[in-house]
């Protein structure tokens, strides 16, 4: 497996792979978004207590779930960046963080909108909501720390450490509704995995919810891959393959110039070594 994975440490190999993968995520993603919209908004039955307002669940739950999921993904990239010093993993942190931050923001935003009619308040400082707010700050902290250093790789290292330490917040968010008294309801879907209990939701609502969860995952992956490719191109912009991807074709004279430059660098390097 390692032999198979190893070429992807090279940025252009990752770029070629993700460029090929994007349409395979984007097309099913867009289709599933449309399906979940129509199903969730028009065909799923209304809730017996909350009426039609519960339809916010079809954006609230997927965004909250993937806000946490992408955080774990970002932390894994942080481990790879720290242990194996792979640049592409560092760039992946930079690609995931904004998407995760937006997912967290959406979950807080739709939660506030849902809270107003159901709880009678936009916001309460209870365990679940506060922990999710901390998740948003962790994402923003990772982004800020990444660019806070003169040397980008030092920033990436610091951001990796913050990302890894911040993982402690993920189980706190998930179990907050069990550990503390809170206004927020208990988990509906993931309890099937984390507590081995049946989902506490009717199948006519569960299915569109699962579709919307998958749809948001695919769309978010596309956004992450687009950002990752941009970051790779930014880092590699002086290299011919990146220039070719950006629509610049080096003619023979420019190529000769590039080769001459390379030789110069090699010579200099040799001289320094001596």
């Amino acid at each position, binding site marked *: 497996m390692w032999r198979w994975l190893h070429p992807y440490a090279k940025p252009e190999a990752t770029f070629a792979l993700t460029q090929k993968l994007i349409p395979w995520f984007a097309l099913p993603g867009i289709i599933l978004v449309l399906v979940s919209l129509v199903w969730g908004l028009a065909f799923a039955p209304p809730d017996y207590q909350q009426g039609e307002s519960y339809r916010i669940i079809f954006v609230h739950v997927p965004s909250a779930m993937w806000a946490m999921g992408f955080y774990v993904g970002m932390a894994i990239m942080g481990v790879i960046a720290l242990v194996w010093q792979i640049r592409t993993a560092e760039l992946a942190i930079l690609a995931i963080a904004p998407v995760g931050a*937006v997912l967290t923001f959406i979950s807080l935003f*739709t939660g506030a909108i849902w809270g107003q009619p159901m709880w009678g308040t936009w916001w309460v400082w209870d365990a679940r909501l506060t922990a999710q707010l901390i998740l948003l700050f962790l994402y923003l902290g990772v982004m800020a720390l990444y660019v806070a250093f003169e040397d980008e790789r030092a920033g990436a290292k610091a951001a990796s450490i913050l990302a890894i330490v911040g993982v402690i917040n993920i189980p706190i968010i998930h179990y907050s509704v069990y550990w503390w008294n809170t206004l927020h309801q208990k988990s509906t879907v993931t309890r099937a995995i984390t507590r081995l209990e049946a989902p506490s939701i009717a199948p006519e609502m569960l299915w569109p919810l699962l579709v919307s969860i998958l749809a948001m995952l695919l769309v978010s992956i596309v956004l992450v891959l687009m950002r990752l490719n941009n970051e790779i191109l930014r880092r590699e912009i002086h290299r011919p393959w990146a220039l070719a991807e950006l629509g*610049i074709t080096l003619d023979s004279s420019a190529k000769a110039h590039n080769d001459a430059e390379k030789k110069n660098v090699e010579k200099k390097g040799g001289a320094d070594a001596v």
Partner: protein
Amino acid sequence: MQFDSWQAFIQMGGYGIYVWSSFAGTFLCFGLLALESIWRRKKLAKEASKQAARAQRILRARAAKKNRI
């Protein structure tokens, strides 16, 4: 279909403003993220063409210098 008319669909049993604003906000966020990525790629392309032009200028200057000598 849970709704009898478009009117009822828009109103969402009195919760229309909450349901629609949360869906609209979500789509706006994702749209902005996607647009930002596309805009960033365009900016990178511009920078690359600038770089290529600079390489060309350097080459031309060097050739001119060689000819003078």
